[in-house]
């Protein structure tokens, strides 16, 4: 029969919509409205997973996010998703689910041997063994890793897409149970902007399975409808079902995960994202997040068929599934009596074992009236049945809860429903360091009172309030109050929903059921924590071994460290520890609560930020042309720059050599648009430059350019570039491409804080200007054809700037050179960049104009011994180290970094200095980064003299060249030293001045 455990009537499932799904290859049917868990239960599937350590068979225990056992993998191939709780997977057509962490099958799992051997392997056993022989850990580890882990990671990129949204609200209400809805309605009525979030796909919380709960004389369904309708009518309310608030990062900043669709849409379009990350900024927050029921801890309490009482009620009333026929309820509080009533109504046989002495509560009385057998003062000491509960053993509990006594009765049953009390969901409060106190009445931790000035409050079950009437009152007050605090209306709620008062008996804590005297297994199978198989015995052992702090307990026993983060187990674990050490619960503190509340898909946080959207791929105005003309690109920061241009049949080496030679012998052109550019204006501009650069700027003539080095306050070079005086009070600064934002921020800093007296304005114009560097002996002849002014050597001297037109558009042209050849840096408005680039190409044909990339530039400048900041410097070099003493003004009182020159370290003898290096063998290319020794083949380990910063094969010189930062390098000029390969071999090289070509510099002035 299909769905043998489905009830004929009732529930929120749609029996007209059958859904086919598979679990471990077997196909089943369920109904629309089911979760995977409810559908599996309806089909009588009792084993769903295996536990982490002992591989014990496990079934479904809960009905929501607190489920520790029933973890499955869904989807195939790229759509595979491991470790999902069957209780939170919505059933959908074609759902493929698999059990995990078992081999070869769920039913017969070889790993179960661990359970047999569990008596040898208590908590932390792995710290005590696997140490022989020495260093054998990697061997053991191989097997241990295989045995550990749960699901498997997909091996293909995620085909799904994810969305992100930032949103601002006045009030965030988390949880749409009775409390959350009431709070939201109250606040909405006052006019505040509200975000109402519910992790389940349906609104209603507990009300969804408490069908007898009358509110405002309405049945729950009707009250829910009325309330939701009212909320929907407000346009100041945003309701987000199937959305979980996962993180409270403080100061009213929350993250939430919205599930936008279920199931797999193969080939799904990017516009149909699977999940959305919300970043929510609010002013007031109400946590109406309910409470999680706790299990009771007895021998074999993890057997399939042991379920949380209220979860079982959920399956019966919400999903119309009664997964057993004969239910033994084991409780220490009144709430489970509701289940008794539902279960009997659904046709089950029910018997109740209550550890308390008695209760006069409403439901207890009702259950008694219905003739349900209730036994007080008794406990389940053990579950019987390995793959499914077959019976329970019951004994009496001694008056101090310390022992069990009397005869053991075996009660046949196919389900044991347990309720060990309720733990309010205080996670969001606690994540933000909200104070917690132990509440005796609730037997759990709740948010501490006295935070009226705080923006967040817990209400309803989340505050430990376990009856609807008070919860609703509390919620209504909180809602009105929150609205009032954000400036809407007064703090008095209107038309509070009223529930009947229900008398309930007190919860009597029972952290663990004592093991019967002489029991062989003792506490070794009392699981307080299911997924990681943490038992009462483990806690006892840890404490015996000196792990007293609960944080130690957690880490030694791994309790609370599983995917459910101890939602059902943490309070019990504390109770057990308290009991064991003789502490009062009020002196115990839970371990730290941390985001996320429930696990969050990594891809959801990444959103669309991957591939080209990971970070901007910045392109210059001429980029498209480069692409179409064989450019191989280099990533420089976010920029894409042509590295070299590959002609058909060329390799990198050939292409770069061709480009270099073109510049040296004819003319080349490079896109230098990525350079940082800053417009500097104001009466104190020259003084400002004087302070940020090492050299003098006051006397620079208008229209003249000068190279400058910027130092940080430690006296080390951090950027360089050419700055030009456009007018008396007006300069144009260039910076390195990568350093542009940093330099701008740095300059603003000095201007706005330390030197606020200087009248200077800075404006970034990096992207206003496209820059084309035209370089080579024929550059002038070429350019002449395109400009409308005199560019002769006499009229337009080296290191000066002129404005005029090129190819019909305005330009600023700078006579500066980074290659050592006669060069023109042509700046035109970015939108003209491509136009001018193409115009140059047209005219350039006759001159052998060759576009060249960054690699050629680097070679050309190295031939000249020009540094690249960041390559030939590493943030620890002074200008003197770089052989650039000439750029440090001797007569200036102060500039940034100057003071540091007085530090002993700067004056030190053995500093590394930039020198040129010539391999004795002209064809040997020195490895960049190679370190240097004075002696050939000096055995490693040894000390370094320094390292090679730049190394190239120079086409014009027909040999390899290099530069390096070498200790006392300048003293070694004309001596030979040795670069050392990784294998220790030596390459002999000669130290020289860092300049290899046209050392007089005549060419660039040409």
């Amino acid at each position: 029969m299909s769905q043998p455990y489905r009830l004929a009537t009732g529930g929120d499932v749609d029996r007209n919509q059958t859904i086919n799904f598979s679990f471990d290859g077997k196909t089943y049917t369920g109904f629309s409205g089911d979760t995977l868990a409810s559908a599996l239960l309806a089909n009588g599937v009792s084993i769903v997973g295996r536990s982490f350590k002992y591989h014990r068979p496990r079934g479904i225990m809960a009905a929501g996010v607190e489920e520790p056992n029933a973890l499955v993998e869904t989807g195939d191939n790229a759509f595979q998703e491991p470790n999902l709780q069957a209780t939170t997977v919505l059933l959908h057509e074609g759902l493929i689910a698999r059990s995990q962490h078992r081999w070869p099958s769920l039913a017969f799992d070889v790993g179960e041997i661990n359970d047999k051997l569990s008596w040898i392997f208590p908590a932390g056993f792995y710290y005590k063994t696997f140490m022989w022989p020495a260093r054998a850990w990697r061997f053991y580890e191989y097997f241990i890793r295989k045995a550990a882990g749960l699901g498997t990671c997909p091996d293909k990129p995620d085909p799904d897409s994810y969305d992100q949204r930032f949103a601002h609200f006045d009030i965030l209400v988390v949880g749409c149970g009775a409390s959350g809805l009431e709070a939201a309605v109250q606040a909405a009525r006052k006019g505040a902007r509200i975000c109402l979030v519910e992790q389940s796909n349906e609104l209603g919380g507990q009300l969804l399975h408490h069908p007898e709960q009358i509110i405002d004389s309405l049945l729950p369904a009707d009250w829910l409808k009325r309330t939701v309708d009212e909320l929907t009518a407000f346009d100041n309310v945003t309701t987000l079902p199937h959305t979980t608030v996962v993180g409270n990062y403080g100061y009213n900043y929350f993250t939430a995960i919205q599930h936008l669709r279920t199931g797999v849409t193969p080939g799904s379009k990017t516009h149909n994202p699977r999940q959305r990350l919300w970043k929510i900024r609010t002013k007031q927050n109400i946590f109406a997040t309910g409470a999680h029921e706790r299990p009771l801890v007895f021998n074999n309490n993890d057997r399939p068929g042991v379920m949380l009482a209220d979860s079982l009620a959920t399956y019966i009333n919400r999903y119309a599934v009664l997964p057993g026929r004969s239910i033994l309820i084991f409780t220490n509080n009144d709430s489970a009596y509701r289940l008794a009533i539902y279960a009997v109504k659904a046709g089950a046989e029910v018997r109740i074992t209550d550890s308390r002495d008695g209760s006069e509560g409403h439901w207890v009385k009702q259950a008694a009236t219905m003739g349900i057998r209730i036994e007080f003062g008794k406990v389940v000491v053990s579950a019987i049945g390995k793959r499914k509960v077959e019976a329970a053993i019951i004994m009496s509990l001694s008056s101090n809860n310390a022992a069990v006594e009397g005869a053991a009765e075996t009660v046949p049953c196919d389900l044991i429903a347990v309720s060990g009390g309720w733990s309010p969901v205080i996670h969001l409060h606690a994540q933000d360091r909200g104070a917690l106190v132990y509440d005796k009445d609730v037997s759990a931790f709740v948010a501490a009172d006295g935070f009226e000035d705080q923006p967040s409050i817990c209400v309803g079950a989340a505050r430990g309030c376990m009856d609807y009437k008070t919860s609703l009152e509390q919620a209504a007050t909180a809602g009105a109050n929150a609205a009032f605090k954000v400036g809407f209306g007064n703090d008095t709620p209107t038309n509070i929903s009223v529930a009947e008062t229900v008398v309930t008996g007190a919860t009597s804590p029972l952290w663990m059921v004592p093991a019967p005297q002489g029991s062989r297994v003792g506490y070794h199978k009392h699981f307080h924590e299911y997924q990681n198989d943490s038992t009462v015995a483990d806690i006892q052992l840890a404490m015996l071994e000196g792990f007293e702090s609960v944080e130690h307990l957690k880490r030694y026993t791994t309790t609370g460290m599983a995917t459910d983060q101890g939602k059902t187990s943490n309070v019990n674990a504390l109770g057990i520890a308290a009991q064991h050490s003789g502490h009062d619960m009020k002196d115990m503190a839970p371990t730290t609560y941390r985001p996320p509340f429930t696990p969050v898909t990594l891809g959801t946080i990444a959103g669309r930020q991957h591939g080209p959207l990971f970070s901007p791929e910045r392109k210059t105005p001429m980029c498209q042309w480069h692409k179409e003309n064989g450019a191989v690109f280099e990533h420089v920061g976010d920029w894409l720059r042509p590295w070299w241009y590959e002609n058909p049949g060329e390799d990198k080496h050939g292409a770069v050599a061709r480009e270099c030679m073109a510049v040296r012998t004819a003319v080349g052109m490079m896109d230098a648009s990525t350079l940082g550019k800053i417009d500097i204006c104001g009466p104190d501009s020259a003084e400002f430059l004087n302070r940020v650069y090492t050299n003098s700027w006051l006397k620079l003539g208008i229209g003249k350019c000068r190279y400058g080095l910027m130092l940080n306050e430690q006296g080390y070079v951090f950027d360089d570039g050419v700055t030009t005086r456009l007018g008396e009070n007006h300069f144009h600064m260039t910076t390195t491409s990568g350093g542009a934002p940093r330099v701008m921020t740095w300059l603003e800093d000095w201007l706005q804080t330390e030197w606020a007296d200087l009248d200077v304005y800075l404006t970034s114009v990096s992207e206003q200007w496209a820059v084309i560097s035209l370089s080579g002996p024929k550059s002038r002849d070429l350019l002449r054809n395109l400009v409308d002014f005199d560019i002769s050597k006499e009229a337009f001297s080296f290191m000066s700037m002129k404005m005029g037109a090129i190819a019909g558009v305005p330009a600023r042209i700078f006579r500066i050179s980074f290659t050592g050849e006669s060069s023109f840096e042509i700046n035109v408005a970015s939108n003209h960049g491509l136009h001018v680039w193409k115009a140059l190409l047209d005219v350039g044909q006759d001159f052998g104009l060759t576009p060249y990339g960054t690699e050629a530039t680097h070679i050309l400048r190295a031939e000249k011994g020009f540094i690249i900041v960041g390559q030939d410097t590493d943030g620890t070099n002074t200008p003197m180290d770089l052989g650039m003493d000439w750029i440090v003004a001797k007569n200036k009182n102060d500039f940034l970094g100057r003071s540091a020159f007085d530090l002993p370290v700067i004056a030190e003898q053995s500093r590394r200095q930039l020198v040129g290096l010539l391999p004795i063998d002209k064809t040997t290319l020195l490895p960049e980064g190679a370190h240097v020794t004075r002696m050939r083949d000096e055995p490693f380990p040894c000390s370094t003299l320094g390292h090679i910063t730049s190394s190239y094969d120079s086409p014009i010189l027909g040999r390899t060249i290099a530069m390096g930062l070498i200790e006392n390098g300048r003293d070694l000029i004309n001596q030979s030293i040795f670069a050392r390969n990784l294998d220790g071999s030596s390459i002999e090289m000669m130290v020289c001045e860092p300049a290899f070509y046209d050392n007089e510099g005549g060419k660039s002035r040409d």
Partner: protein
Amino acid sequence: MINSSNQDSYSTQPLSIDTISVGALSLQQLPTSGKLILRGKPNDNAFTNRVSQLLECELPIKVNTVVTSKIGTVMWRGPDEWMIELSLDQVDSLQTDLIAILENQHINIVVVTDAYSVLRLSGQGAPDVLSSGCSLNLNKSEFGTDQCAQTHYHKIGIALRFVDETPTFDIFVRRSETEYLWRHLELACQTNAPH
């Protein structure tokens, strides 16, 4: 002959595409507009008066506001910084005029026409599209008529201008980062437009 607004050679807008629309949402790369950054002291009456006279509107001194005049719009960018957006062919003359009237004052006028491009996002749900990477509060009450703001979209800086109640926003973005923003917004439009 030489004219910075020489339209023919303005061949290279950052994107080759102009407009997409998805449902009610549209995203558009606006044709290049003229843009000037104006710097000066807001408490210097000589400065503000002269600028106001020339622009025929008050200089927006109030934080995050926009003033529209015959010449174009003036956006607040900081306590001593404004951006004037105007038609391309008026950039040179306005620059010249400003320089002339503000002679000998500590001010600065910089043309940034090409440094930024402007994307126009319009349609119901536009704030949600922007919110896919922008943390600014775009609720109507917080960001509406005559308002502008500089903020960020994921990793890049943007400036937003509220255009109309459709709602329509103009987004000023660095030229080289335009494509990044466009691609993000295009996908966000597809997600947020009702299907």
